[in-house]
């Protein structure tokens, strides 16, 4: 498979680019909701529009009412989301939770997928425990209780946790905290008793929660997949989410870079356009190289993931780490090359820096994924 978009993918990219630059634009969405202190951090009307565009069920199987596409296609939408800093529950709901639900019972699919596809439901995924992404260790417990389970523990960095109609929760049903086995995924409905959210606004104006499970009673049919068989599904969910976050990061990087290159062509200082200065030209050209490479490896890893390749785990981590570095460079160079106005809220470049920081952390930063690359490579 060549590492560029085929005709259908190119069409999807055009559609997503036009939609996101109009409906998902920074002034219309991110600034609008941020300036109103929106409790969700995104607009539900836009989410309905995502549904009309066919985006919400993009990776849901056609038999279940979705578009039956893959992570590459979800990544095409996410790159445009990144470019426009469009706040939406797409990554958490349509990529992470939708990937988990692929492994759910017909009953679970019937309960949750129609709402997702229609743009009426929002899902969250509760994985992290503590401030750093360490999914190898899961201490949140789900103990047998009658016909079901009782959930106890705390999850952090749950994006859209308080807005979600359902949370996919990774919990331990057997073994000890660091065991690979003994994990089960649960679909926890928002009105579950003894679940409480401490909602926090993040630097990028998105909303996350510290979510407490204080003996949450769950039916047996809340289990996604098999009891104690959640690790394999969780890994799939993580891979899909990580490559999705990488694709969004490519958009953030591309948006910040284009904005900066444009600025270099407009801003005059010392009687010259600042883009004439070689000191800036070389940095811009270096940045371009890094962003191109980040895009290439993101498409590569997406294709490997969609093709169930054995190399997918490794290359997804390579992509997540590479994008974190490239996008981090794009926003830092962006602010510096904008000069003083780069520090102001009137200019959008700072918003890219904020989003990039949150996205880097989500599902593992460059350090986490470089470490994983070393481990998967055998050193």
């Amino acid at each position, binding site marked *: 498979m060549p*590492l*560029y978009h085929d005709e259908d993918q190119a069409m999807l990219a055009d559609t997503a680019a036009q939609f996101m630059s109009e409906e998902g634009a920074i002034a219309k969405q991110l600034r609008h909701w941020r300036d109103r202190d929106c409790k969700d951090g995104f607009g539900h009307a836009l989410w309905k529009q995502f549904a009309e565009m066919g985006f919400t069920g993009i990776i849901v199987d056609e038999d279940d009412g979705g578009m039956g596409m893959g992570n590459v296609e979800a990544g095409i939408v996410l790159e445009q989301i990144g470019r426009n800093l469009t706040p939406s529950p797409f990554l958490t709901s349509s990529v992470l939770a939708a990937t988990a639900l692929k492994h759910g019972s017909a009953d679970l699919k019937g309960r949750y997928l129609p709402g997702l596809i229609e743009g009426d439901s929002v899902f969250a995924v509760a994985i992290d425990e503590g401030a750093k992404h360490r999914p190898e260790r899961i201490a949140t417990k789900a103990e047998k209780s009658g016909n079901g389970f009782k959930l106890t523990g705390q999850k952090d960095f749950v994006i859209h946790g308080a807005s979600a109609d359902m949370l996919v929760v990774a919990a331990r049903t057997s073994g000890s905290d660091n065991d690979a086995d003994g994990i089960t995924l649960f679909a926890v409905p928002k009105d579950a008793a003894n679940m409480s959210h401490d909602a926090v606004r993040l630097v990028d104006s998105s909303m996350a929660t510290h979510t407490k499970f204080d003996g949450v009673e769950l039916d047996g049919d809340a289990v996604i997949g098999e009891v104690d068989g959640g690790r394999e599904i969780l890994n799939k969910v993580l891979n899909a989410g990580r490559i999705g976050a990488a694709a969004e990061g490519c958009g953030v990087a591309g948006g910040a870079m284009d904005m900066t290159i444009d600025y270099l062509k407009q801003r005059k200082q010392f009687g010259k356009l600042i883009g004439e200065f070689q000191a800036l030209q070389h940095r811009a*050209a270096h940045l371009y190289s890094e962003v191109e*490479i980040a895009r290439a*490896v993101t498409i*590569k890893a997406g294709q490997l993931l969609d093709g169930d390749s054995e190399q997918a785990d490794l290359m997804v981590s390579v992509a997540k780490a*590479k994008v974190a570095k490239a996008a981090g460079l794009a926003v830092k160079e962006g602010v510096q090359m904008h000069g003083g106005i780069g520090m102001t809220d009137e200019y959008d470049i700072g918003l890219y820096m904020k989003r990039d920081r949150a996205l880097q952390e989500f599902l593992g930063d460059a350090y986490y994924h470089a470490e994983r690359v070393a481990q998967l*490579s055998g*050193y």
Partner: protein
Amino acid sequence: MPKSYGEDCPGQVGEVNRGWDVAKYLLGHEREMISGAGGGGLTSAIGAAMLRHAGELDPTLRADLAMFDVDALAYAAMGEKFLDEMKAGKGHPAQPNMMKYVGTELNKRRHELMMSAGGSRSLEWDSEDTGGGKPSRNWLRTKANSIEGGTSEVMLNVVSKRILDLPGA
């Protein structure tokens, strides 16, 4: 080599007065060959080989190797994309300059890390053990990569002007 040979003049390559097109194409090839030394698919990652070689790695060296492998594997994907796009006639004509810049800088970094992981053994200049000082000779050779076929600085000039369309001479 370009397909079109001049019919009237057997020694002519391409069209009259379009020699620069041919020259750029050939230079592009030279650049790709040099940067190709920095690519080469999944074998471009070196961390695992360095561990086998060295027995153990300092944690900070291991971290640098991991970051290098991220860059090397990502660059290998870029190499694949570059070739796919070239075959399909999609790539930017100045993209070989970007590939050359990144590939050669990466190769220099690779050999710096290999020297560090190899320790004093990789300093041996003509011992049989090192195949006649291969590690150190190869390491020194890579320093020319970012000079021959157009320096890294020239590559960055071309990218900034031809691809990014930045102003100035």
